[in-house]
């Protein structure tokens, strides 16, 4: 029996395949395609302290091997989320990682505090959404701000705290070190890369928000590079993401130093993409006689 389980800050995941926040709804939207209990963890769409209506449409545009999105973190807020989504996810026997978003430090802390007594396994703090003016990216690009918000969130958190880092920085190891200094238990990277598309026929921006976050296969090499850099800069476990569509893609991230991976945009192309990635990882291990997935983590120096 090959060992696929990994450990993120004391939380045992049966395999390293998670979902990337924002691409999988609360998880429940995908349950007719994916047995959620088979995943390492379900990472929910960002949840704030109150409902957020998100940005105007059009909110997405396809690009070469990827897409731009500027959803703007539309979410029902923690109240509805706790009442409706957490119990349903629990019933599916999914490991739950809640992605938390906010406009101010207090917003984040309020949500984290509300989650303290809930049957939630991990918290992922979104300080890197490029599509909301306040909060999100404002925290994620400045190392001092990253350290400060990590410290504050840690005061209220009962579950391990994963800080989600932005790639829209000159040196991602600076924000990674800042999160570590602030007491983060793990890091996830990368969030989307800020991009723009212009509709030349209509002479306007493709997105109502003008800019959006680039995701999909197109960003994978950037993400692998950043995971590798951060893995060498901090001691924290890393959840790697950015364009993972296959088991081979996931193996690259593990070899670069990620302990787990998240599958995002690929779920739009194939709603069972998470399970395909898991199967691909198993096939790789079989092919190369890898007994324990830990052998692969950071194996390329």
């Amino acid at each position: 029996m090959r060992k696929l389980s990994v450990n993120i800050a004391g939380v045992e995941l049966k395999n390293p395949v998670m979902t990337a926040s924002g691409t999988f709804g609360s998880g429940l939207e995908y349950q007719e395609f994916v047995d959620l209990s088979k995943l390492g963890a379900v990472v929910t769409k960002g949840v704030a302290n109150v409902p957020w209506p998100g940005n105007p449409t059009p909110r997405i545009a396809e690009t070469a091997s990827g897409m731009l999105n500027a959803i703007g973190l539309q979410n029902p807020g923690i109240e509805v989320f706790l009442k409706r989504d957490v119990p349903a996810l629990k019933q599916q026997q999914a490991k739950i990682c809640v992605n938390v978003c906010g406009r101010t430090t207090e917003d984040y802390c309020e949500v984290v505090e509300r989650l303290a007594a809930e049957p939630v396994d991990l918290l992922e703090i979104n300080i890197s959404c490029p599509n909301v003016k306040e909060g999100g990216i404002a925290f994620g690009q400045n190392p001092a701000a990253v350290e400060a918000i990590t410290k504050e969130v840690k005061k209220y958190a009962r579950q391990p705290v994963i800080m989600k880092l932005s790639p829209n920085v000159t040196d991602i190891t600076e924000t990674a070190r800042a999160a570590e200094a602030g007491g983060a238990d793990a890091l996830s990277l990368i969030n989307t890369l800020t991009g723009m598309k212009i509709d030349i026929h209509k002479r306007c921006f493709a997105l109502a928000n003008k800019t959006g976050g680039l995701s999909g296969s197109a960003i994978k090499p950037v993400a692998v590079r950043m995971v590798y850099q951060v893995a060498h800069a901090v001691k924290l476990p890393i959840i790697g993401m950015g364009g993972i569509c296959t088991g081979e893609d996931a193996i690259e991230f593990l070899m670069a130093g990620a302990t787990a991976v998240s599958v995002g945009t690929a779920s739009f192309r194939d709603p069972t993409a998470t399970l395909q990635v898991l199967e691909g990882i198993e096939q790789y291990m079989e092919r190369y006689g890898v007994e324990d997935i830990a052998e692969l983590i950071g194996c390329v120096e």
Partner: protein
Amino acid sequence: MKITGKANIIEMTELCAGIYSMWIEAPALVEQAIAGQFVALYCEDASRMLPRPISICELDQKKGWLRLVFRVAGAGTEEFSRLTAGDKIELMGPLGNGFSLEDGEPLLIGGGIGIPPMLELAKALYQKRGKKGKAVLGYRDNTTFLAEEFAPYAEVFLASDDGSVGTKGTVLDAIWKQGLLADILYACGPTPMLRGIQAYAAKQKLPAQISLEERMACGIGACLACVCQSTQTDAHTHVKNKRICKDGPVFYAEEVEL
């Protein structure tokens, strides 16, 4: 239960410049599908990561076939247009809510590439009521498509922007000039047309079911890309953003702000 997988293309024809008709064998999907729903078509070329939402034009329950009529609007639909009978295509569906068949004299209104979903609706209403309703179809010019296929199920009126066929002007111009009366409106077409129908329905105090479109990613209500402004609080986020892919694409005119 949504069906996913590869399906056989039975027939592929170009109806007029840039408008294609594709019959697909998908019995499990067809069995569950109704007029006004749509399917997601996936490109073979993996550099195009998002599915294309295409409305259902016809359902053949006996054969388990599905007909899609689409316009080539970009690289994805261009790829589909090159497929031929015998090829396979990856799809998911049925998606969305579809039209509700109501009692009363129906007026079906289709504009441009919003015409295809009205054909299955015309059939379904004809089968339910045992008599023809009315359909008004709007085109840019005399390159019409599908119009004659409505004839067995509806009395057909045409409108064209340049006046080359039917009433010169919009579908609303045709409704006024032809004096078309009805108890219930069903419409699909470009947003300015739907806005006109919405205002017309409000003024005439008629119920109207309108089918909306927006760029989509997941197609199943998860990504929140394809929302529209709604007049009432939505069930998902509890704001006023209904998901076109899941709560729609068909809404009552008073439910949405266009």
